Every structure is written in structure tokens, then in C-alpha cells.
């Protein structure tokens, strides 16, 4: 879940909670006030009634009791006087009860007051309709809900808009300074355009990290360069010295053989060093990848170079590529990648076997398949196939780095290589070019 949405959710939730609590408080407060003012009115009315008390009035009221005529038109209040026969003095009390007046039933707040006049005991009942109070309560509830709804929806929109605006520099930093960085050495150290301190901190931390990474890459680059120089120069000396010795007329056949074997060993050493250097350089991003490459043409070139090998082993090559896929990358590296893969397909194929190259367009982009009919590999071997120095045959012409090179070139270009193989049936390599 995005931070923006989390914040919006949190804000909405707290607003609903606050308004709900306030609403409940207001409603109970309003209810209290209305009921209290109602009670006060009834007490006032009783006091007025008691102070103006006269025999005639009592009789009049007693008379009216039967007909309930002393109601105002809205039936909001009434007054009833009854003659009672109680000995104890009872304090006045308020009750809430249902009363039906002229066939209309409603809730009334009722005050019972007992008093003595002229030796007789009476109970005065003053009723006030609760409808008004209930209406106020209902209205308050309605308005509270309305305000709640309006506030929540308005603030939700504004929260979303504001957090989006607030977080924009964050996404910009992530996109520009992390996602789109392929080469830490050419990192853009320009400060992010934001006033939020937290994002400035993030930005400067990323810049600091990139500085460290690029320093390390540069050190490694320097190291690789030094290693190449320090290792390849002595090999060069040895090689040329051996070459000169070969042409010494006084040399014995035995020595000649030994020199030749040493030359072979040296060539092997050179191949291993160069392969390791290549892998390091690729992994250290020391190649540009801005060449426009036509894959079909590239494969045709590689196959042409391997033609004599195909002929020598009577291997047929079937090119079933449907399109000449365009790809932006490093021409020389991709040449090496296909050279290694196709050379393996030749090398490990059976005599008079077949190599089939085909392609497909899955949703992820473009795919090339290279299939051979060779010795194949079991699952354990497939797992280790791309590991450095892993060799499955005792062939002298392999130093176990070919597929490691393929792997590093592929990941440098964000390509994926997978392998399906069955022993004695053949191997299929799938190369995924991502969009």
C-alpha cells in the first residue's frame, strides 16, 4: 500500500472518530439542555399555578379532568389536577411516559406534584411533549452526519492531493537516483528539488552511497587494469621468448616439444586471464551499450565464422528466425555471447547432428532458442553450468569460463538465459530479451 493512501486512510479514520465522538457529545449535551429547560418550565408553571390557587380554579380543573380540554392546539402541554387520598407527603417527581391525547400518542415529560389545599390532598400533573426535544436530537444527529460526510470527503480529496504533491520529490528521487542509474560512475549528484528535509536527507544519503559505490568501482577498474598489465606483460615476455627459441636451429626435438607444450599452456593461461578480465569488466560496467544490433545478422556472422567447424563435423544448421530483431547493446559482447553459445552447440553436438535456431515473441519481449542434438546435461549439471570453472567434460579445449562469460554479458544487457537439457538428446538454450 502506498504511503499516500495509508496517510489518507489514517486521516479519514481519525476524522470519523473525532466527529463521531463530538457528535455523540453534542447530542447528549443538547438533550440535557432541552430536558432541563423543559423541567424548569414545568416547575415555573407549577409555582405559578400554586401561587394563584383558589377554590374556583381547583374546581374548574377538577371538572376539566374528564374532558382534557386544557390543551393548546399543538398538544404540547397539558395540566391535570386530581384529588388523591394519600397520607404521606410525597416529593414532586419527573417521569417520562406515553400519553394519548385525542387519539394521538406521544412521549411526555410529566411532573407530579402533591399538595394540600383546604384540607384536601391533590396531585397536580403537568405534561410537556417530548416531541420537540426528540426533533432537536434528530436534527442534530442529521447535521452531525452531514458535516461528517462532507468533511471526510473533502479532506480525503485534499489529503490525497496534498500527500501526492508532498511525496512527488520522493518518487522523483527513487526514479532518477535509483531506478534509472545504470552506471554509478556517471551518477548525477545534483540536489533534489524539494523543501522537505526528510527527502533531502534521503537524497544526500543516496548520493553518499553512490559516491562510495562509484569509488569502489573506480578502484576495481584500476585494479583490473593493473592486474591485466602485471599479468599479461610477463606472459607476453614468456611467449615471445619461447617463440624465438622455437626457431633456434641448435635446439633438440625434445626441447622443441617442451617449448611447444609451454606455448600451449601459456595460451591457456592467457585465455583464462582474458576471460576473467572480460567477466570483471562486464560486471564492472566498463562497456557501453549503445550499439544498434540486428540479432539475425549477428547470428549469421557468427555462424559464418563457425562454418568450417560445422563442415568438419557434418553438422547442419537450421536458421528459423522469423524477424531481424533490433536490440541496443554492445555489439562485441553480444558477438562473444552468441559465439560461445553456438560454439558449444557445435562442440557438444553429435557427429552429423543439427543446430536449430528459432525465436518467439512472448509478452516479456523477444526470445531466441538455440537447440543442439548433443550429449545434453542432467539437472545437476544444468544448475552448475553457468558457474566459473565448472567443466563437465575432460576436453582440453575448455577452461570452463565460456558460459560464465555468457551469463555476465546477458545480465549486463538485462537478458535472461535459461537451459533445458536431456542427457544424450540435446540442449536448448533460451535467451530472453526484455523490452
Amino acid at each position, binding site marked *: 500500500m502506498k504511503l499516500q493512501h495509508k496517510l489518507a486512510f489514517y486521516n479519514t479514520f481519525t476524522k470519523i472518530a473525532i466527529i463521531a465522538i463530538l457528535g455523540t457529545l453534542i447530542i447528549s449535551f443538547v438533550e440535557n439542555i432541552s430536558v432541563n429547560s423543559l423541567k424548569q418550565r414545568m416547575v415555573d408553571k407549577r409555582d405559578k399555578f400554586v401561587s394563584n390557587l383558589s377554590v374556583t380554579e381547583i374546581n374548574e380543573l377538577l371538572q376539566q379532568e374528564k374532558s382534557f380540554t386544557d390543551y393548546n392546539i399543538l398538544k404540547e402541554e397539558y395540566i391535570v389536577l386530581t384529588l388523591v387520598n394519600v397520607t404521606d407527603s410525597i416529593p414532586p417527581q419527573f417521569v417520562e411516559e406515553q400519553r394519548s391525547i385525542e387519539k394521538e400518542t406521544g412521549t411526555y415529560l410529566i411532573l407530579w406534584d402533591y399538595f394540600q389545599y383546604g384540607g384536601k390532598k391533590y396531585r397536580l400533573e403537568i405534561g410537556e411533549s417530548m416531541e420537540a426535544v426528540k426533533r432537536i436530537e434528530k436534527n442534530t444527529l442529521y447535521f452531525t452526519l452531514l458535516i461528517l460526510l462532507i468533511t471526510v470527503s473533502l479532506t480525503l480529496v485534499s489529503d490525497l492531493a496534498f500527500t501526492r504533491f508532498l511525496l512527488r520529490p520522493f518518487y522523483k528521487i527513487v526514479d532518477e537516483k535509483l531506478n534509472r542509474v545504470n552506471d554509478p560512475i556517471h551518477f548525477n549528484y545534483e540536489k533534489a528539488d524539494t523543501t522537505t528535509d526528510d527527502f533531502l536527507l534521503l537524497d544526500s544519503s543516496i548520493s553518499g552511497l553512490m559516491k562510495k559505490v562509484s569509488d569502489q568501482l573506480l578502484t576495481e577498474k584500476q585494479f583490473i587494469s593493473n592486474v591485466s*598489465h602485471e599479468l599479461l606483460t610477463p*606472459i*607476453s*615476455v614468456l*611467449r615471445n621468448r619461447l617463440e624465438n627459441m622455437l626457431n633456434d636451429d641448435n635446439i633438440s626435438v625434445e626441447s622443441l616439444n617442451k617449448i611447444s607444450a609451454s606455448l600451449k599452456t*601459456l595460451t591457456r593461461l592467457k585465455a583464462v586471464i582474458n576471460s576473467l578480465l572480460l567477466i570483471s569488466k562486464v560486471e564492472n560496467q566498463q562497456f557501453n551499450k549503445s550499439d544498434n544490433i540486428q540479432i539475425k545478422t549477428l547470428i549469421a556472422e557468427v555462424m559464418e565464422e563457425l562454418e568450417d567447424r560445422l563442415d568438419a563435423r557434418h553438422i547442419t544448421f537450421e536458421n528459423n528466425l522469423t524477424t531481424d530483431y533490433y536490440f541496443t547493446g554492445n555489439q562485441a559482447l553480444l558477438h562473444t555471447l552468441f559465439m560461445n553459445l553456438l560454439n558449444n552447440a557445435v562442440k557438444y553436438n553429435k557427429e552429423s547432428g543439427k543446430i536449430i535456431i528459432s525465436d518467439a515473441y512472448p509478452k516479456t519481449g523477444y526470445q531466441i532458442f538455440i537447440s543442439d542434438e548433443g550429449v545434453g546435461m542432467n539437472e545437476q549439471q544444468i544448475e552448475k553450468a553457468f558457474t566459473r570453472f565448472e567443466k563437465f567434460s575432460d576436453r582440453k579445449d575448455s577452461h570452463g569460463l565460456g558460459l560464465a562469460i555468457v551469463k555476465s554479458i546477458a545480465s549486463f544487457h538485462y537478458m535472461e538465459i535459461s537451459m533445458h537439457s536431456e542427457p544424450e538428446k540435446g540442449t536448448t538454450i533460451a535467451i530472453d530479451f526484455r523490452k
Partner: protein
Amino acid sequence: MNVLIIEDENSLAMEIAEFLQKEGFIIELARRKKSAEEKIFVNSYDFILLDLGLPDGDGFDLLKYLKDIPGRDDSVIVLTARGSLDDRIKGLEEGADDYLAKPFALTELLARMHAIIRRKHKVEKNEFKVHDFTLNIQNRTVCYGDERLNLTKKEYEIFNYLVLNKNRVIPRVNLTEHVWGDILEVNSDSNFVDVHVKNLRKKLSQMAPIDWFETVRSVGYRINI
């Protein structure tokens, strides 16, 4: 022809010098950028073999220095152990005639020098007499009398390389490297070259005896002229 070898690794310079002297070149050595600069200033050379990693400066500066002297046409072959593609491109852009990554074969160096001589001076004859056969470098053909041999590209390359390095044992690895280039893993199975040599010899011997085309057991081949 005179050659200036600019190389700080003394033993390497000596090996190159020994090899080229046998081929009839006159050799001068420089081990530092400063002394190389002096030599370049005083003399002009047919070839300058330039190592890029000198202890007192970058070889590219020397290349630039040379190219800034008007009227000079010394051919430069850059030698480097840095082995980066960028260096190769930069070297050629700055006006070097060729580029060799260490460790290179001396026979390869000689073949490149011959190629430069042909390209630049156009004085070298394009046809080489190899006993009863004629190798034409211009048309890339081999003829027996008037009859043209039907050689494959690789067979021609092998023959050409052996002829350019005549009277010299050429190890298989050198041949492989020359014909197939410096392709890491592919390069290592050097016995592959034997198949091509076998076919080449068959085609040649159909025309005339080729006892001058020697197989040096377990080492390589030699063409004696």
C-alpha cells in the same frame, strides 16, 4: 627498415628486437617516454612499436606528439596489456596503424607489419613465389602456373600466414589466433587448425610435390623457401 621499440619491460623489448633483427630490421629501443620523445624527434622510423603503459607517462601522448610533427609518416603499432576495447578504438582514432593486445605472437606482429608496408608504401610486390606456386596477396589467390587453386578462406589465410613467416616454425596456437582471431573460449582448441592444414596440403600436393611444406611434429608448421 628501422624500427623503434618503445617498451618499458626490457626482456620483452629484447625478444621483439631479436625476432625482428632476424627478419632484417634495424632496431632501436626506448624504455621511457622521455627518451622515446627524443628519439622520435631526432629520427624518423619506418615502424614505431608503442607500448601504452610507460612508467613516466601515457603512450597516447607520444602518439599525439608524433602526429603533431609535420611531414612524418612513421607507422605506429600500439602494443598494450590493458586490452580494453576503448584503448583499441582510441589508438586507431589517434592515428595508430594497428593495435596488438599483449600477449601477442611475434609472427602476428610480423604479419601486421607486412600488411602495413603493403598498404602504405605500395612498393611491396603483391605476388610471392612459393616454389611452383604463386601467392597473390592483392587478389587473395594461390595459383599453380596459370591454374588457380580452389582454396577456402581459412586455407588461404593459413597459407598466407605461413608464407609471410617463411622459414620459421609457426606454432599451432599462433595460426589459430591469426585465422580465428582472439575469441576467448573458441581460441583454445588449437588442434582444429590441423584439419584445415591437411586440406590445404592435399590441394597443393595434387599440383606438385610439397616437401617444403613441413609439419614440425607436435609444434606446428613451416614453409621453407
